[in-house]
């Protein structure tokens, strides 16, 4: 079984929104017709977006971390939005696990959006049907695009390479390795939706400096007497290093 998914590295994301705009650009130009973009230059613009980048501040000044948090459909393995659909328009593809809406069957009752705890489905006011991230199904299953471009638009657009794409059921895929080795986690595990998309945690980059590392014991200038020689140090870390 294949389960395509994104892995988003929160340690890398810089919050540039390139994934948001590339997602909108690709998906508003597709076979499904444009995604609504109402009043884009007015006072109260609104529109359909499958992907958003949010920003959170963790901690209290001065010990804060800014976390940029891209949010799109998580393509749950047990998607609560699918069984509630009265028409079968909302479905999970058996072959690759992508959760999709058949826009020709959707009646726009919005019930699936109520049934998604993550709020990643958007009702399109133009086409009057529910829309959502398709994981760029038209790109990733394309037979005409160059192999390197058969990835979601957001993944290709990310300048920091914070977004990985692959099969989370294949233990050797880039996404599975990232989840396994970098502590990838799922959102809202309390609802047993088993999201396929995972997030890699923020990591503080730290180096440990020992005081004796700042002093070079075998400084030739000291050996030559041109600099005052330091008092003899006891056995240091170097003496125990293998």
């Amino acid at each position, binding site marked *: 079984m294949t389960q395509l998914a994104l892995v988003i590295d929160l340690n890398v994301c810089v919050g540039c929104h390139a994934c948001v705009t590339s997602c909108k650009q690709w998906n508003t130009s597709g076979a499904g017709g444009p995604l609504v973009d109402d009043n884009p230059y007015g006072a109260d613009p609104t529109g359909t977006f499958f992907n*958003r980048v949010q920003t959170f501040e963790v901690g209290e000044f001065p010990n804060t971390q800014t976390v940029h948090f891209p949010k799109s459909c998580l393509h749950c393995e047990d998607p609560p939005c699918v069984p509630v659909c009265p028409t079968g328009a909302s479905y999970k593809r058996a072959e690759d696990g992508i959760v999709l809406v058949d826009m020709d069957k959707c009646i726009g009752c919005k019930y699936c959006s109520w049934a998604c705890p993550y709020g990643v489905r958007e009702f399109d006011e133009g086409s009057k049907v529910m829309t959502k991230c398709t994981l760029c199904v038209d790109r990733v299953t394309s037979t005409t695009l160059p192999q390197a471009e058969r990835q979601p638009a957001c993944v290709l657009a990310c300048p920091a390479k914070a977004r990985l794409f692959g099969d989370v059921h294949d233990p050797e895929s880039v996404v599975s390795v990232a989840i396994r080795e970098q502590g990838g986690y799922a959102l809202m595990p309390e609802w047993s939706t088993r999201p396929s998309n995972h997030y890699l945690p923020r990591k503080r980059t730290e180096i440990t400096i020992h005081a004796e590392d700042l002093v070079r014991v075998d400084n030739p200038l000291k050996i030559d007497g041109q600099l005052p020689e330091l008092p003899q140090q006891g056995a240091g870390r170097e003496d125990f290093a293998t």
Partner: protein
Amino acid sequence: MNPAFSVIFLTTLIGAAQGLFLALFSAQLAGLATPAFLATGGVVALALAVAGLVASFFHLGRPERAWRTATMWRTSWLSREVIALPLFMGPLFLWTLAHALGLGYTLVLGGFTALASVALFVCTAMIYACLKFLQEWASPYTLVNYTLLGLASGCTLATALAGLMAPELVGFFGAAALLFTALGLVSRWLSLLRNARLVPRSTLQSAIGIRHPKITQRAQGFMGGSFNTREFFHGKTPGALRSVKWAFLLGAFVLPLALVALGIVSASAGLLVLAFVVQYLGLLAERWFFFAQANHPQNLYYQTVS
């Protein structure tokens, strides 16, 4: 959630229609009502159900595809409701017709309508109760309240109809109206108590997966509105919500109880009609509050515009 008036009207109207039919059918079983009265009541119940059905179409973005909703009854309570509603309305129409024209078979038709009516109460309530992360809804109280409030408003309407057309039935229907309104008050009150004590299972910590007691949203990703901000926030103050709560407790339960009791004692059809009107308006407020009170976990992601 942002209450949608189409759904508020749908659930209150068909609830009253089901309650009214069950009251009428009970009167038929007890041998109290004349066919003419039952036929008139059936027409009223049918009219309410049709009005509810019409209201439901306003909730759909693509109403012309509504026929597709009957396909996923294996998994979707909404689909089951869509099947149960015509299963209720069709036999109700035949039952009404049979009474009006004296065609017979009213017990069989009525029995089938009664079963469909009960099934419809279950389906309507389960649409909301099955969404486990909407913790205010995911409770047996939702099922009990939808049923009891439908029965209460239906019985009050039956009492009002009896007051207008068959005064000898006012006592029978009035007693049922008082009973179900009182039971509805108790169960709705209990559900309010339960919901007041709910602890949200999802937190900002679980929503973005970061373990820190202090997380503040700095940007939600856009400055204008979106479906996320329109569909899931009612935008009213907590004070307004409290006012609606007391308004519906008064309008759907306390006032109708008093008006029905007064109407029975003073044999005044006007008071009984007023009781139904007040109770229906109260139930509109109750249903609005039911939706507004539900706190969707997605709201955690939309706490700060920027």
